[in-house]
């Protein structure tokens, strides 16, 4: 018989927020430490593999708005990637503006910016672009599933690992 249990809104909020900020932390909060560790390792590995393939411009809110939104679901990772991209963008834009001034207006800022990216070997081109953005974006979407799962588990009051049936022992965490 189902019992009426008050909804634990702070726990739902904490599980969801932790799962967003640090992938896997929501599950650790719910007492599912090994699951949280696995999620942390693989979501981070996927996101940073994407950044390793595509470089600093993998997270690019100016050119890849929707993919950037997906990447932001990795929380701290996505935010760090965005911050690094913003700094690299500002540095490249500064160089491009200097170049426009030196050319006496012959170059447009956009042209100069593209040249700076190519010269500094920061320009993201196919196929590295596709792979990098897919890896990091899918990492974000996977973490969205984890956020929803952590919030639902908290709403159901499912703290800790489920008990194994008789005759089966779960490995100790």
């Amino acid at each position, binding site marked *: 018989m189902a019992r009426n249990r008050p909804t634990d809104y702070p726990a739902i909020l904490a599980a969801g927020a932790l799962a967003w900020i640090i992938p896997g932390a929501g599950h650790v909060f719910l007492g599912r430490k090994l699951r949280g560790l696995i999620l942390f390792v*693989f979501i981070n590995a996927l996101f940073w593999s994407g*950044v390793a393939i595509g*470089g600093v411009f993998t997270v690019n809110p100016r050119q890849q708005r929707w993919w950037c939104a997906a990447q932001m679901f990795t929380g701290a990772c996505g935010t760090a990637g965005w911050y690094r991209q913003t700094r690299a963008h500002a540095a490249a834009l500064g160089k491009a503006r200097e170049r426009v001034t030196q050319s006496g207006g012959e170059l447009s800022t956009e042209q100069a910016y593209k040249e700076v990216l190519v010269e500094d070997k920061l320009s993201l081109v196919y*196929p590295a672009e596709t792979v990098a953005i897919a890896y990091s974006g*899918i990492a974000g979407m996977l973490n969205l599933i984890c956020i929803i799962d952590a919030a639902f588990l908290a709403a159901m009051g499912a703290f800790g690992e489920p008990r194994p049936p008789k005759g089966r022992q779960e490995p100790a965490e």
Partner: protein
Amino acid sequence: MSFLALLVHPIQIGHDPVYLVLPLLAAVAIVYKTIRVKYLRDLPVQVLILWGYMAIGLAVLTAALYVLGEHVA
């Protein structure tokens, strides 16, 4: 090349990096099954099954689209 430099500049991955879909599918299978399996003991087998399904499914889909593109369109 330092680790930080690796995260700044894009790397060369060849012109046809189809093989890179396999680690992506593995990561998807691991994360999905980690939150779906009831008992963690079942995780490795469930991950392998899902990874196999996705890899074979994509291969079949690729072959079907290739045949469609070459012979029908």
